[in-house]
């Protein structure tokens, strides 16, 4: 029997060379892979590949890693849920996607529809010796690899993360789970079950943070922009003014999804000074109605003064401090001289 179904070839000459992205500097957010992202907060469902399911203890570890990824992403990155009807699959023991090295591997060419993930079999023989998964080895001897840690690394790849670039002395190794060289027991980091801060940093850049109140990874160093507006810049004596500040992540292209984000729930103070004088803290502004807004109502104003909002760089977060421009509020119109200051209405 001969069946023929010939298709003509539409030869398309493609552009020649595509440059690789420059390598990330040590201690930076993880580099990222090429390819499409998942949708924000997409719940990606995976199953065990038929006939190639991992042993039960490995399944438990992989499912735990999926939960770890969701719990520690600190972003709107995808989550992963086991589901027998899932379009993504994970297998064990056959590794065409893995190549010759490594303990596990992934394939995200079909993102955002599906992914695949593969784990080497217990007992796989490498040049250095025999692979032992801790979960499949009695008493978890030194030298075994933690399947939950390795699976979390792979889920990080599936998200979009590439390997973290460590300092030469590896002192920042714990900043990322997505590592070129995962560690075996008992080396530091061998059983990390949460994304590191530099993993999170790239997930935040690519997928955004969940809320304006969400903390930015300390592996980031985002500049912020603080604006201020006064309800009036000329008030009678003794007057009142409402100041509204707005704190945003500076809108820079390299910040990707984080640029322009409103930043809520932080400490923004308001300061004032008499013209030519020194700044004095007045109060901590309270949360305003809009995301990233902070308000303060100044009452009994008796003198013209400069005002500004100040956001001090917070500890434990990867955003910089900022000061707003200065707004001058003039006070005038007193009825019982001598008035403290006399100005003309604008």
């Amino acid at each position, binding site marked *: *029997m*001969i*069946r023929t*179904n*010939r*298709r*003509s*070839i*539409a*030869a*398309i*000459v*493609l552009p*020649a*060379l*595509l*440059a*690789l992205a420059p*390598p990330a500097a040590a201690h930076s957010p993880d580099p990222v*892979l*090429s*390819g499409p992202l998942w949708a924000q907060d997409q719940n990606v469902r995976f199953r065990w590949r038929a006939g190639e399911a991992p*042993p039960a203890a*490995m399944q438990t570890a992989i499912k735990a890693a999926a939960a770890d990824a969701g719990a520690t992403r600190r972003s709107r990155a995808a989550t992963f849920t086991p589901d027998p009807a899932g379009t993504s699959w994970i297998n064990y023991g*056959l590794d*065409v*996607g*893995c*190549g*010759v*090295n*490594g*303990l596990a*591997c*992934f*394939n*995200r*060419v*079909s*993102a955002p*529809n*599906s992914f695949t993930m593969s784990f080497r*079999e*217990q*007992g*796989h*023989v*490498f*040049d*250095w*010796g*025999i692979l032992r998964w801790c979960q*499949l080895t009695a008493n978890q001897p030194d030298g075994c690899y933690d399947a939950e840690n390795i699976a979390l690394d*792979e889920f990080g*790849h599936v998200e979009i993360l*590439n*390997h973290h670039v460590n300092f030469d002395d590896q002192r920042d190794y714990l900043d990322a789970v997505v590592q*070129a*060289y*995962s560690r075996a027991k008992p080396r530091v980091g061998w059983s990390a079950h949460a994304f590191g801060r530099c993993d999170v940093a790239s997930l935040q850049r690519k997928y955004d943070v969940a809320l304006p109140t969400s903390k930015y990874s300390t592996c980031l160093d985002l500049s912020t922009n603080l604006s201020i507006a006064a309800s009036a810049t000329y008030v009678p004596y003794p007057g009142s003014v409402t100041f509204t500040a707005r704190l945003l992540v500076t809108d820079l292209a390299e910040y990707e999804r984080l640029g322009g984000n409103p930043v809520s729930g932080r400490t923004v103070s308001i300061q004032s000074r008499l013209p030519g004088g020194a700044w004095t803290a007045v109060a901590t502004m309270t949360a305003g109605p809009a995301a990233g807004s902070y308000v303060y109502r100044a009452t009994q104003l008796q003198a013209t003064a400069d005002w500004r909002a100040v956001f001090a760089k917070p500890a434990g977060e990867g955003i910089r401090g900022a000061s707003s421009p200065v707004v001058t509020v003039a006070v005038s119109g007193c009825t019982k001289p001598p008035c403290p200051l006399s100005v003309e209405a604008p």
Partner: protein
Amino acid sequence: MRELRWLLRAGPPIAALAAAAMLGSVALGTTRGVSGQAARTGPLGAGCAKATALVAAARAPVPVSPQAAAGEAAYAVRPRLGADGALAGQIVELGTAAATSVRLELPPESFAAGPFGRLVVVGVDDGRRSTLRAFDATRGCSWTLATESDVIRRATLDPAAGDVYEFRVDRETRADLGVWRRPLVGRAAVRVVAPLAADDRHGTTFSTELSWSADGDVLVVQSCGMTSCRTRLLMTADGGVRSVEADDQGEVIGLVDGLLIAYAACRGLPCPIQSVDVTTGERATLAAAAGLARIVATGAGPRLLHEVGGDDDRGLRLVDPVSAASASLPVDAPGWRVVATPSRAGGSERIPPGWAPLSPDGRATEPGQGTTLLRLEDGTTIELTGVTR
């Protein structure tokens, strides 16, 4: 897709018919060594006794047509897992697209490489010694090539020179012992590539693979850590060794016209494919986000063939490594994947120039299961259907 049931047509190769006559897999009933096969074929393999036949088998010409390819050597390696999920051994099947000639159940530390002409090299370590054999995959007989107390991790053949190259590690320490060469027939081995020095940038070596340049004159020795790789090139003509240590080097795909073509150090797909001029170190990106890939022979010279896109929109690109010029290549075969390099695909088969093998998952098709070939010139696919055993 054109389906060619070649046994129903005139002209299946004689060797393939012979293989078909032998038919069936040989369940060796042992998981240690190749004793079962040895019992069947004798120490040197039935019908494979003469050394001259060994060299001739290694030099069998490349098939010129898909029909001829149906009778060419093929092999596939699959892990065999125990009830506890641990690796219990490797199953190596040898034969052609039409029939399995030998099925070997081997220990975990074993491998296969090839085909070289009609030969597939099979290495087996029983925990005390390593044994290398060359099987005539079309006939199922074998020759013993070497027995060593060191662990032979990988081996390959240079059919033109009639040499065997082995990569070895120390049995106790697993230290790299370098690459050794021995004639196919006679004489002891000599070390031709020194052990690789440790390098923290790459970490412990997970795997060292041996492959050949497109011209067959340069042995590519690539050692990979958990993620990144180092490559050394042995010029077989003069014994010179050159290192290629490009940053971010991943698994090698091929060596073409002095260009080492390799993935970046990705540990997954998609992954960029880069070329490195082994003389100048100049690098170029041949694919920004590739799936499975291999080097294919064409009338215009070797080309990089790689997947692009995912399950819903997968396509192929054919790239000239030298000029980086490329063309897209739509394929009308649902669910296909490119059969990758032998080390990644777990096997290989001999195919004619101008064609590339496809399979449902990128793994090498097991002998006797037929094969799907893609004609690079016009996108035609042909299925060589295996015989029913």
